[in-house]
């Protein structure tokens, strides 16, 4: 049996013998080291973090950065409400204005739109005005903006539905507008 050249594993500047000793102890926890204790400050920090994490997670409240971690928890049925912007042109024609047409700062605007449901008229008008200003930048033909709650439904493509209600086709299914309720409207004149 031949003798292979021993391959030594060394760290930079380490003596081979020391490296070999470390390697022997590599997987053995040093339980006799009295200094190997978790500091009290760390235990306090961990305690605070877990109280915050567990309380929000178990009870289910939102107090950012504390959160319940509710992601896709609500059931998705065949009907869903959306808050949408509908632009009205001078000739009376209407079209839905997608939030993706607006600058990124407006991408989450659907959530403030919902507050139109319970806001005062003044607060709703403020929201509407900032949105119509942004919409007019994108589409100068729009003279009025409507904030609507749009009740939509998933229907089979081969079922009965009106062309005007069509929102989007998803394979064998179609998303259609079932009911559109205008909650607030504002003119673009103030934004020009």
């Amino acid at each position, binding site marked *: 049996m031949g003798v292979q050249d021993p391959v030594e594993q060394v*760290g930079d500047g380490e003596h081979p013998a020391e490296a070999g000793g*470390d390697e022997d102890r590599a997987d053995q*926890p040093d339980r006799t080291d009295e200094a190997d204790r978790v500091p009290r400050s760390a235990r306090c*920090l961990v305690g605070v*973090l877990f109280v915050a994490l*567990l309380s929000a997670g178990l009870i289910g409240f939102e107090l950012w950065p504390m959160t319940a971690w509710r992601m896709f928890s609500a059931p*998705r049925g065949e009907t869903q409400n959306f808050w949408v912007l509908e632009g009205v042109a001078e000739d009376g024609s209407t079209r839905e204005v997608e939030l993706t047409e607006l600058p*990124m700062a407006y991408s989450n*605007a659907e959530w403030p739109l919902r507050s139109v449901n319970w806001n005062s008229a003044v607060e709703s008008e403020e929201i509407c005005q900032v949105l119509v200003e942004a919409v007019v930048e994108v589409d100068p033909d729009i003279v009025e903006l409507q904030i609507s709650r749009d009740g939509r439904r998933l229907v089979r493509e081969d079922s009965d539905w009106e062309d005007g209600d069509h929102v989007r086709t998803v394979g064998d299914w179609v998303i259609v507008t079932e009911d559109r309720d205008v909650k607030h409207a504002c003119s673009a004149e103030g934004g020009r």
Partner: protein
Amino acid sequence: MTTASAKQGAPEASSAGVVARLKSWFDDTLWGPETGARLYVVHVGLSVLIGLRVVLGPYRALADTPEPLVDPVPLLFWMQEMPPLGVIIALQVVGGVAALAAVLRRNVRLAYAVAWFCYLILAAYRGSRGKVLHNDLLLLWVSAPFLLAPLGETLRDRIPKRIYGWPIRVAITMTALVYFFTGFHKLRRTGFEWVFSDNMSNIMRWGPSIGEPALPDAATWIGNTTWVAFLAGAFLFSLELTFPVVLLWRRLQPFYAVLAAMMHVGTWFVLGLDYWAWAITVPLLLVNWPELWERLGDRPLGSRLRRSP
């Protein structure tokens, strides 16, 4: 000792044994030992991730958010409107430089804390537009214990110690709890119908509320193929609810890391949801990269192979 007293003592000894085992498990789960090499890799990895999120995140666009559309998170309760663009850029620059310093191990504790704080504030700005955004929350939470992580560890520290282990073990525990809560609230709010109904199909058909899927046709196909939607839903639901098993059987941690990464990559493709921070954070924490490196190669991470003369 009589037979009667011996029998009476047996249940008490048994319950005391169970309590002792639970305490031991709890102690090991949170404060168990890990090598300095593993801590080094995780600490540097988190610093890189935080730096990337701070520098590459879409925070500059937030400066244009009109005041009526601002809904400040509780952490920024005093905020009436978004800060000026200059403030946001300053936070990104300072946070990015601090993260780089932490990666290069320069004034690590201060640098890491500054980077983490800048990240916290920027993520808070992003979340101050009416909707709770979870994209950055996992990374923020699991990187918090490292604010007090020990310093001076290197890739050559291969002796497991509790002083090195606690930040990693705590972060892993937090990760397991976070995934569990996502599944728990699905169960709480929808029940098992989350899986055993058209729920997953409808999620695919309705699409995301923000953003666009990278592969909309894939989302449509999943939504319209009943058995695929069912399997996808069952996979997500069971992965989240069972995540805490990684605290009982640590050998499962790498597998759950891979599954979680797959889930987040998949949701990006079919729903366009940006969870790449989650997809990288979970494997970073749950996989012992120095140990894996040693197993794949013949030398420890941070060492140099030298043949003796």
